[in-house]
């Protein structure tokens, strides 16, 4: 066998594994790799199906304090999460120059089930990850850009997938208590002898919140079972979650400066919300000859309610607080397979189908007694997304790997709009239906040179489905279409890895948050936007037990029509995580381990309307724990330096005085960022 053919074989095996992994779900891989991989954290394409795919093992960095499972996303380059409306509401995601709001530009999946809400009245693609118990997140896989044909709706800026498994088998019971009367209890049972993907976990939490109107509660349960059945590997996941939160809302900057409103004070104490999610996933992975694949079915029930007030009384003297509700029953199928066609050519393909039966509403309510006085949305939306995709992977030369794929999505919407027509008529707007097709070609090339170096070039076209209530009868559903190109230089060494990439992304129908209307809107005459950015990340494991993870992303986003900057997008997001976890000795024969971690986030300025910029923010978290035999005691410090920072920042008009006469000129508003908190943990691992 020649060296070339050997290399090709190696590549084929690698690629086969790569392709199989996402196809069959990373769950199995997680289990298999538990013993063989002690640390591969941020990796390039070594085990991926997309040139920009990066896999992170968050448990390796668990010493770094985090709020919950959504905060794990900060480990991926360029991700910044804002929690401006209370703990319990979905985070606001920023990455690669996108203000992805609550998920409109990022496709999320957990355990094989999609997370983004279709046509949620609060925001298209709303993705509430709070239901995920962080202790059972084994792998976080992020595909930046829309370069993989498996990526579907909402994969405008990226896709993020959480795979669930527990490597530390046995029973874990952990309690946490901290400032602001925050309590959390979690229990995980991972039966020994079963695969890593088999576990039962539960979580209860509550907090008075760091300031008025910030209390929250949550309860979550997740159970997963996986076993081999002949040629099949079967996995079933059940989960249930309910969370509620209060929100302090915005602080009007001039009022804060004049002492009218405190930094953490709430002007409207009736803000908050409720979110619930109940779901099931069943998956079968199979091998038939040289063909491998998987088929997965999922069912999800969602309930959501949010009450927010950004403008006080500016729109109506009765009060501007709005309530948005959304409930949905969603189910779908996701099947894919991979087959070698030639020695140097593989075919990957799959089908995806999803149906959402939703009901949504939005209404304004009186400030004093919360009685609704104006209904703006009252609709049932049934949405269907059916997709087929295929990708050819060729390795014509030992140093060259090519991929070309195509994804076609057919989306259909049926809308029953119960809002009365304009002009004083009583008749509802009635039923409408709309349908559209989106074709998204993808292509990439990987050039391998030197021993550990690769150069990746990628292009992809992705889409975001429209908010259904904006569609007209018979409208050819106007997708937001994204074209993205990327070049990346990657290094993968034994003790470290690094990559540098540049990208260009164009969105033809972008959405910008309008705090006054509480919705994301396209801006007439300036719908299209372009982002140019660069990203770098590196991972080092210089000594045993120590892992360093650093990333930085710089992006500029602008409107094509005006050349002006897209508001609210952070220019720079940098993150450093350092975690040390190692047995340091024995006391009377009992092993003692020390774990310590530091995480630092630097969020650069954000462009705001009227040529203003928010201030850069540096946040540092730190934590440490000592593990003696089966008992672990630790402390988690968030915002160590107690930086008084402004989380969400907006420029718009508001008036918090019910009496007429207040100014309507736009002013700065902000939501107060999390102050210093300390939480103490005690855990037992049996």
């Amino acid at each position, binding site marked *: 066998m020649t060296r070339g053919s050997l290399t090709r074989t190696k590549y084929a095996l690698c690629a086969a594994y790569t392709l199989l992994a996402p196809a069959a779900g990373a769950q199995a891989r997680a289990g298999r790799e538990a013993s063989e991989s002690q640390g591969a954290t941020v990796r390039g394409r070594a085990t991926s199906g997309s040139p920009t795919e990066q896999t992170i093992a968050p448990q390796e960095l668990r010493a770094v304090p985090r709020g919950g499972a959504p905060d794990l996303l900060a480990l991926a380059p360029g991700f910044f999460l804002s929690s401006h409306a209370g703990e319990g509401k979905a985070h606001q995601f920023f990455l690669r120059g996108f203000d992805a709001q609550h998920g409109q530009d990022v496709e999320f999946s957990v355990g094989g089930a999609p997370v983004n809400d279709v046509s949620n009245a609060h925001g298209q693609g709303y993705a509430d990850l709070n239901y995920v118990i962080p202790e059972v997140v084994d792998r976080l896989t992020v595909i930046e850009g829309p370069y993989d044909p498996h990526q579907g709706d909402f994969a405008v800026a990226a896709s993020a997938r959480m795979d669930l498994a527990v490597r530390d088998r046995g029973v874990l019971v952990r309690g946490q208590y901290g400032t602001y009367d925050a309590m959390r209890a979690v229990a995980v049972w991972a039966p020994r002898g079963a695969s890593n993907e088999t576990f039962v976990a539960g979580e209860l939490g509550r907090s008075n919140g760091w300031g008025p109107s910030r209390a929250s509660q949550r309860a979550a349960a997740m159970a997963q079972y996986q076993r081999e059945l002949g040629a099949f590997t079967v996995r079933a996941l059940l989960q249930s979650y309910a969370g509620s939160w209060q929100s302090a809302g915005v602080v009007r900057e001039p009022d804060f400066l004049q002492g009218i409103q405190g930094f953490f004070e709430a002007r409207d104490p009736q803000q908050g919300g409720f979110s619930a999610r109940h779901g099931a996933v069943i998956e079968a992975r199979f091998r038939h000859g040289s063909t491998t694949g998987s088929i997965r079915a999922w069912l999800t029930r969602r309930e959501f309610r949010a009450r927010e007030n950004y403008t006080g009384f500016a729109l109506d003297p009765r009060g501007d607080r709005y309530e948005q509700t959304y409930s949905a029953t969603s189910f779908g199928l996701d099947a894919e397979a991979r087959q070698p066609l030639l020695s140097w050519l593989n075919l990957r393909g799959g089908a995806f189908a999803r149906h959402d039966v939703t009901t949504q509403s939005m209404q304004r309510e009186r400030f004093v007694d919360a009685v609704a006085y104006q209904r703006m949305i009252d609709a049932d939306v049934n949405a269907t997304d059916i997709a087929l995709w*295929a990708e050819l992977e060729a390795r014509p030369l030992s140093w060259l790997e090519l991929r070309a794929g195509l994804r076609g999505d057919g989306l259909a919407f049926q809308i029953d709009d119960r809002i009365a027509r304009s002009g004083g008529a009583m008749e509802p707007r009635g039923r409408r239906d709309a349908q559209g097709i989106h074709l998204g070609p993808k292509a990439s090339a990987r050039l391998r040179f030197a021993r550990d170096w690769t150069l990746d070039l990628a292009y992809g076209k992705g889409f975001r489905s429209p908010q259904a209530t904006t569609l007209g009868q018979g409208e050819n559903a106007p997708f937001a279409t994204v074209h993205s190109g990327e070049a990346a230089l990657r290094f993968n060494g034994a003790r470290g890895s690094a990559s540098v990439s540049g990208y260009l992304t164009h969105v033809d129908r972008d959405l910008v948050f309008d705090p006054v209307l509480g919705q994301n809107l396209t801006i007439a005459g300036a719908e299209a936007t372009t982002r140019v950015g660069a990203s770098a990340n590196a991972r080092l494991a210089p000594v045993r037990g120590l892992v360093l993870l650093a990333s930085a992303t710089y992006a500029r986003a602008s409107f094509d029509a005006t050349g002006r900057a897209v508001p609210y997008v952070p220019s720079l997001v940098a993150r450093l995580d350092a975690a040390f976890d190692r047995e340091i000795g024995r006391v009377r024969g009992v092993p003692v381990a020390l774990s310590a971690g530091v995480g630092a986030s630097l969020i650069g300025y954000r462009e705001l309307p009227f040529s203003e910029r928010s201030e850069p923010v540096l946040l540092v978290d730190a934590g440490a724990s000592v593990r003696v035999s089966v008992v672990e005691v630790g402390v988690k410090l968030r915002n160590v330096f107690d930086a008084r920072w402004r989380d969400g920042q907006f420029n718009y008009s508001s008036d918090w005085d019910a009496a007429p006469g207040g100014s309507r000129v736009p002013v700065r508003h902000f939501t107060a960022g999390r102050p210093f908190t300390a939480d103490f943990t005690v855990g037992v691992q049996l």
Partner: protein
Amino acid sequence: MMKTSKKWLQSGCVALLVGLGACGAPVGSIDVRAWGEEFVANEIPASEFEDGWGVQFSKFLVHVSGVRFAATGGPSYSLTGGGRVFDLKPAAQALSIGTISMVEARRLDDVRFELSEATASSTVGNASASDLMVMQGGRYALYVEGTASHPMRGTRSFRWGFTGNTRFSNCRDASSQPGLVVTSGTAATPGQLTFHADHLFYDGLQNPEAKLRFDAIASADRNMDMMVTLDELATVDLTTLPTGQYTTGSARNVNTLRDYVTALVTTVGHWNGEGHCDEAHF
């Protein structure tokens, strides 16, 4: 095995390419319609009025021109044939006034039309030749004839012709969606220029709480011939009417009932029923 795979692969690629190539922009057509709704075809019932009057039109002539459908930054389609006169009274249903074919099937967000003065080059739509002559003779954009009835005050007739050009643009439908969604296929997408005749009797020019009234108009019948003319309306100064009625907002030079009714003409044009447009004189 490999041979079979190759064939399979080739077939797949061809199918993909054909599929991609077949995805050209679909086209449809627009059936442009005009209607005065039941208020013109039948009557404006007394229940609509604040003061007990009811109105029945016998003629409602509109001179329509400049009908255009466009997508921002995209294609634009116009109804050809120049200005035409339509009588909306006999139209029990929306009247088809023309079809625009080969229209890209998509949302055309900028819909506009004009209610403009008839000229020598104007032609008849469904109106009679004599109607056309009336419109051309007075250079009218809108001409209405009708009768108002009141159980206590009897009846008054009116015959009013209005000059002036108004462009209705950026029309949104009753769901506040811009323009018109043209669907592909053989069935034409209807797009309706709707004329709200009741607006001629509103008592506020810039008032969301405006009411329909006819009392003051009936009282303008100075010569007691039971026919209220525009000249008679011109003799009624608004300052002789209660201050809460016939408010003018920021409109200039609206001093008499004639000025008032003439100003209201610019608000009659609507889109697809209750949809609104921006209005502009030109």
